[in-house]
């Protein structure tokens, strides 16, 4: 079976796609530049046209370096603080790259979880299969990269138990996710194996509601909110950097707490 994570476009096209906003801004700048005098043009070319790209790639290089530092700071045995169930916010906060009104519910009965990559058993999973795994609950703080936070209570099998069950290569670098809302994401194996990394199917003791990722979403106590994809449809274990939705737009990939 062809990996659902293999990019559809050739790398060159993807790179072009990544830089579309930059190219647009460059052409916009070109218009402004065209309307300016030659003298002003000479002054502009040095600092206004060439530098943003260089600055952008320098910042991205440091961000990648920081991903490495974050991985070093990550202690696989360190548990995030937990809270009493009475502190759980009901309902949880909704956040996505689109409005809550645009959520497209997933049918749990026909839903299947594709498994691919460096795993022994690539059989697709049903919701019932997931519920048959040992269940774990945690009441943890959700921290958004924007700055807000809330306490939520999540239940489901640990990702570790899932990965062990499918015979995943636990020395692989990445675990990647595909979702029903086209929100690809990926995490490092160390975090995937952390005891507070769940394939959550419940919130506050109830089945996950549609806006929050029914039937299954990722919940990690050790990463920022945007690293937790909802409505997961496929999981791949891989050594090839898979990236993610916000990461493509410049956000940190590791995003560890």
């Amino acid at each position, binding site marked *: 079976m062809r990996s659902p994570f293999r990019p559809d476009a050739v790398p060159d096209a993807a790179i072009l796609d990544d830089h579309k906003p930059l190219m647009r801004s460059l052409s916009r700048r070109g218009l402004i530049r065209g309307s300016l005098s030659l003298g002003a043009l000479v002054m502009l070319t040095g600092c206004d046209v060439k530098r943003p790209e260089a600055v952008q790639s320098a910042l991205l290089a440091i961000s990648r370096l*920081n991903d490495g530092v974050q991985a070093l700071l990550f202690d696989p045995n360190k548990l995030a603080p937990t809270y009493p169930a009475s502190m759980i916010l009901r309902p949880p906060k909704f956040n996505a790259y689109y409005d809550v009104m645009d959520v497209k519910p997933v049918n749990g009965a026909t839903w299947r979880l594709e498994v691919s990559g460096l795993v022994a058993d690539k059989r697709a999973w049903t919701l019932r299969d997931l519920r048959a795994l040992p269940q774990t609950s945690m009441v943890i703080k959700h921290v958004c*990269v924007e*700055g807000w936070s809330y306490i939520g209570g999540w239940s489901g099998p640990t990702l570790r138990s899932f990965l062990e069950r499918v015979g995943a290569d636990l020395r692989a670098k990445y675990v990647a996710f595909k979702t029903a809302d086209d929100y690809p994401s990926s995490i490092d194996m160390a975090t995937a194996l952390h005891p507070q990394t769940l394939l959550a199917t419940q919130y506050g003791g109830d089945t996950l509601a549609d806006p929050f990722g029914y039937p299954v979403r990722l919940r990690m106590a050790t990463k920022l909110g945007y690293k937790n994809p909802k409505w997961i449809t496929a999981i791949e274990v891989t050594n090839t950097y898979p990236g993610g939705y916000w990461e493509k737009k410049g956000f940190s990939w590791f995003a560890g707490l």
Partner: protein
Amino acid sequence: MNQIENSAPGVPPTPRMGRRLHPWPLRIMHWVNAVVMLVMITSGWGIYDDDVIIRGFHFSKFWRLGDWAAWSLNWHFAGMWFLVINGLIYLTYGFVTGRFREKLLPIRPAEVVQTVVDTLHFKIAHDDITVYNAVQKLLYIIVILAGIAQVITGLAIWKPVQFSGLVSLLGGFQTARVLHFVGMAVIVGFLVVHVALALLVPKTLWAMVAGGPRVSASSHAQDHHARQGHAA
């Protein structure tokens, strides 16, 4: 008289071999810090705007570094290395060379009050830029401590799980976040006064570029000088 114009009054003309008021390593650190602080403050404003702490208060696009949150964050997490490394070198330098002890101590409360009163009467003495008055000393110590506090609260909100002990010490994640914001406000407040005074007394600004007058190398002499200066 003209020949010793650069020397501080009350001090015998020092041999030309004396070091500058601001030795070159200090000047480099100062200007690196100046740029990095601006990067940290303005990128921090970009991050702040994504989820404001004070309802209705945000920073307009002009003041933000990074065209949106992703790039403000990238600026912030790039700048932090320069801030921390430069800051650590500065602190080490300040303690090892005795500059902190020499320039920032002692601070006597009575002198602080007197300087504030004098300032309110527009009697700001700045003939001798090699000696800081009590308020200057206090402000420099406050801003150094605020800089250190920013690194600590910043670490807490960057890694609230890895440093969960620190977070609870600071009163929780959201409190740490507010403290990080308050620390910024303290530094910006300092910056406004600092830049305004440097522009009012341009020779202080030039001294931070060129090094300023040569001063005696002995910290004892400095201390003696300081006391003489205040007695005068």
